[in-house]
């Protein structure tokens, strides 16, 4: 429970996102694509084991639409 409260969360800016799909390739454990190519993101906190990979997905987005935030 403690881990859940301190974990970080992925969020996409849907205005910036243009459906390149890089995030789903870099972090398939937490991101899949809908039938139009836009990301469906697991709303749960990112497990610590996946945090590095999540950061890579964030920096790999060509339009910088993916964010890794502290849970609000």
């Amino acid at each position, binding site marked *: 429970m403690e881990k859940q409260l301190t974990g970080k969360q992925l969020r996409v*800016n*849907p*205005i*910036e*996102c*243009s*459906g390149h799909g890089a995030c789903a390739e870099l972090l398939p454990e937490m991101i899949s694509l*809908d*039938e*139009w*190519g*836009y990301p*469906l993101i697991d709303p749960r906190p990112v497990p610590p084991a996946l945090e590095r990979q999540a950061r890579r997905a964030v920096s790999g987005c060509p339009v910088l639409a993916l964010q890794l935030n502290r849970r609000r």
Partner: protein
Amino acid sequence: MPLRRGEATASRSRPDGLPRLLPAGPGEPDGLREHLARHGFIPYRNAPLQLAGDLQAAGLTGRGGAAFPVYRKLEAVAGAGGRAFVVANGAESEPAASKDASLLWLAPHLVLDGLQLAAEAVGAQEACLYVHNTRGEQFTAALRRALSDRWSARIDRVPVQLAEAPARFLAGQETAMVNLLNGGLALPTFTPPRVFERGVNGAPTLVQNVETLAHIALIARYGAGWFRQVGTHAEPGSMLSTIHHADGTVRIVEAAIGTPLRSLLGADLGTDGTDGPAQAVLAGGYHGTWLAASRAAGLTLDNAALTRAGASIGAGVLVALPASHCGLAETARVARYLALESAGQCGPCLNGLPRIADGLATLAGPRPSPQVRANIERWAGLVTGRGACSHPDGSMRFVRSALDVFAAELRQHERGVCSASARRPFLPLPAGAAVSEEDWS
């Protein structure tokens, strides 16, 4: 306008009963003189945030749709640091709603008193009145006149600009409005920052619906106890509604929150034991919820009751849909309008809404395949919660409730039969909006 102080500041007796906001009975709009005679001079508090306590005690919530506690917004803006900006939001975009436009037309000074009091409460030095440019030249000219009368009479302490919103459904959405006021397009933006953190000119911005401001002007004069004389304990006060009756007439009504829908819609829902002409009621507008007439007949006009039925007060719209019209065809027409009014900025909304509208047009026709409904439900799931603004979520609330409430009609259509007899559309859409007509019936 010449103003005699004595006349302006004479104490007024508290108005009992309703209406509170609109001048009782038909008549001319309240000019400044009539307004002062009715309500007296604006009760400035001469201290920031003093008003917030009264509004908290009154339990006033926003009347623009979200029903958020007003005092909390005031505190958030006042506490954000920096000089604040205040906007009176009168850009009532719901095509079926006209309560805000009616209020601005009939009692503009009540709204503008509330705007000044809100500006004082958050320490703003600038304010703006934001309205649609579609209400006609007479409408905006009257508002300009009201503003200049107040400035000449030295009632307003904070200058108020009139800003006009383009004729788009989303132009009244607060981030779109801030974007426009900052010199951009009236398109929603991604949050954060929220407008109370950084809005017009980067200032913490208080956005209040015009009806909310009118209530503020009355609470500041007559007190929280007076405000609570009507309404429910959880949702005190009165509210304006735009009511579309099954016979096509439209009324603006001020009613106590908690009033039975049966008394607002009158004979539309039938009298003891007999069905009325309405088959369903749309509550809240085109981001709102369809309710079966039998269900609506047992509900009251408050969010506590409406939420239990999956609905909400929303934009204060109630439409009684007569049994002579096809609920699926009506929903399909409006869904097409909502798809065209998408800002097209977010992928799921851009891709989903037109497909859903097309699907609904198919359901409104003869013998749709079961796959169509399944597609609509899947797409509805894909667009919900995935926009920068509430447009996809609101549109899907409307669509999903239609599939639920008009399920029996859909079964008829699957057999090639439509129960409607009327061909003319019932739900209002703005003139010139591109919609596909469903003439099969």
